[in-house]
């Protein structure tokens, strides 16, 4: 068993456990923290896949910015503990059926279609590096990049306009 596989298995266990923990915890702050752990684990997956830029983006954007916002909202609203939700009678059987379907699909894909006829073009080697991405953004994709900045400005102005209290 290679080191890489071992690492993958450990990370996979952590990822699944943290996802379950997020689903099962009744305390919203715990759930959010489990989600942070999950995001961080996925970021390490990206590192394993030789994609350092996406890994860092995953940590700064998802685990960092978005989750901090989540926590802010949870704490500001003061709904840390969820009230016990009413049990829907059809929920469990439906979940069971759907899970079974998913299992069947993955078993089929993993064991019966070994040779997937999908041939993706190989990515350019430093494709995932920050240098390559920066170069693409500021040369080939300069115009979309600039338009995106305008778009974010407009969205921000709009959000402020709609939420500001009239003096």
């Amino acid at each position, binding site marked *: 068993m290679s080191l890489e596989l071992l690492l993958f298995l450990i990370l996979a266990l952590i990822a699944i456990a943290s996802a379950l923990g997020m689903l099962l915890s009744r305390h919203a702050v715990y759930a959010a923290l489990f989600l942070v752990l999950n995001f961080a684990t996925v970021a390490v997956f990206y590192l394993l896949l030789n994609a350092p830029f996406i890994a860092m983006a995953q940590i700064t954007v998802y685990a960092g910015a978005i989750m901090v916002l989540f926590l802010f909202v949870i704490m500001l609203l003061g709904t840390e503990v969820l009230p016990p939700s009413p049990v829907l009678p059809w929920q469990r059987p439906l979940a069971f059926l759907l899970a079974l379907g998913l299992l069947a699909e993955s078993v089929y894909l993993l064991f019966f279609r070994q040779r997937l006829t999908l041939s993706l073009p190989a990515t350019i080697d430093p494709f995932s590096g920050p240098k390559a991405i920066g170069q693409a953004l500021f040369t080939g994709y*300069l115009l979309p990049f600039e338009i995106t900045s305008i*778009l974010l400005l*407009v969205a921000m*102005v709009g959000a402020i306009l*709609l939420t500001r209290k009239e003096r």
Partner: protein
Amino acid sequence: MTAADFSLFLPLAVLLIWATVLLIVDLFIPKERKGWTASLSALGLALTLFLSLRQWGETASGFGEMLRVDPFATFINALLLLSGLGGVLLAYGSIRRHGVERGEYYTLLLFSVSGMMLMAQARDLILLFLGLELLSIPLYVLAAFALPRLDSEEAGLKYFLLGAFASGFFLYGTALLYGASGTTLLSGIAQAWSQAGRNLFFLVGAALILVGLGFKVALVPFHMWTPDVYQGAPTAVTGFMAAGAKIAGFAALWRIFTEALPGLAPDVTPILWALSALTMLLGNLLAIAQKNVKRMLAYSSIAHAGYILMAFVPFGVPQVRDVALAAGLFYLITYAITNFGAWAVVSALERQAGQGLELDDYAGLGSKAPALALAMTVFMLSLTGVPPTLGLIGKFYLFRSVIEAGFYGLAVLGVLTSLISAYYYLRLVVIMYMRPGEPQPVANPWLNLTWGAMAILTVLFSLIPAPLFWWASQSVLR
């Protein structure tokens, strides 16, 4: 980025920078002098229009083929910038009266116009998507601009949620086309199509993009949001949205399908046929039941999306394609002029926000304000397609090109639905002239200018349509 790239981008860059600077300048303009913001935004639009018209006749691509300047783009840009000017006029004449005057209105409008222009010029799906969002996000905010009013909030939220959903469709389609061809450039997709041939990814991707844009231009299965949003949004916003978003959406639709997926014509034509037929039928039939003028005009705008789409149905028939597209472009002018006029009249009768919008509020307008009633009559006749108005000429060109392409059923349907529409358009005219009432129209010079000029143009261009049609036929995508 080279100097050549920049000269292509110049009009758009000027508009974007102007809007950004205006956002700051507006902070220093006192609240009771927002007329300055309005005039500055109009000046920016006029300047961009001048720069854009200077590109007339030029055909070039820049930014690695992403941005295109051709007669088609220049034509659509001019139409969009004029719509923006119409939107500013309409707003300046009404938003203070409706208590929603804030300087950001005009900047958001400028940003929206630049998004629309981007949609007309982009030859890359990523850029097209950004244009679509830059068009939509300011419109979501503008729809909710009369904020404490519930129906305006509802309009904004509804438009936002459904619009985000539609953007998702567009993006998913983009992803599939990218997956099938390995590029987001329209020319690259066309190349990949000719190599790979017919495959499922292209078909599904094109269908999803059609859904996303169909939402923006309010084609029938995707029209649900239109009446509520048009009714709830401030009237000035509705007038601008009805013209601008439609023009930009159709421009993008035309460019994507003719430049990236011309080989898809046999598959897409029946779908377009059905969409066009359904849109004309349902839009006109549902308009009959409306009591509120804004809702009636909303359904009328849905129906007109069907007419405009008609011009696109024969895009797979090479000898008719150009004529049909020219007819479609001509109809866009017709629609924009008539639309602004009609919304200006609606705005003039809306003394307070949300008041005076029922059909019965128009009773007695013929004797109380004869000029206003006459203008509204002209617009209603033009929307129906009765001489001597521009609407007739527009529909004539449309139906003729569809018949030339051999789609007789569609032409017959177009004529029949126009007959149906006569019922509710002329009902408003009858109410204005035949029923007694005490309407109290507002005499605002800017509104008067809008509806007056539009009424004159509607009649004038119907008498001499040749220059306009010549311009449209020079602007066809090749």
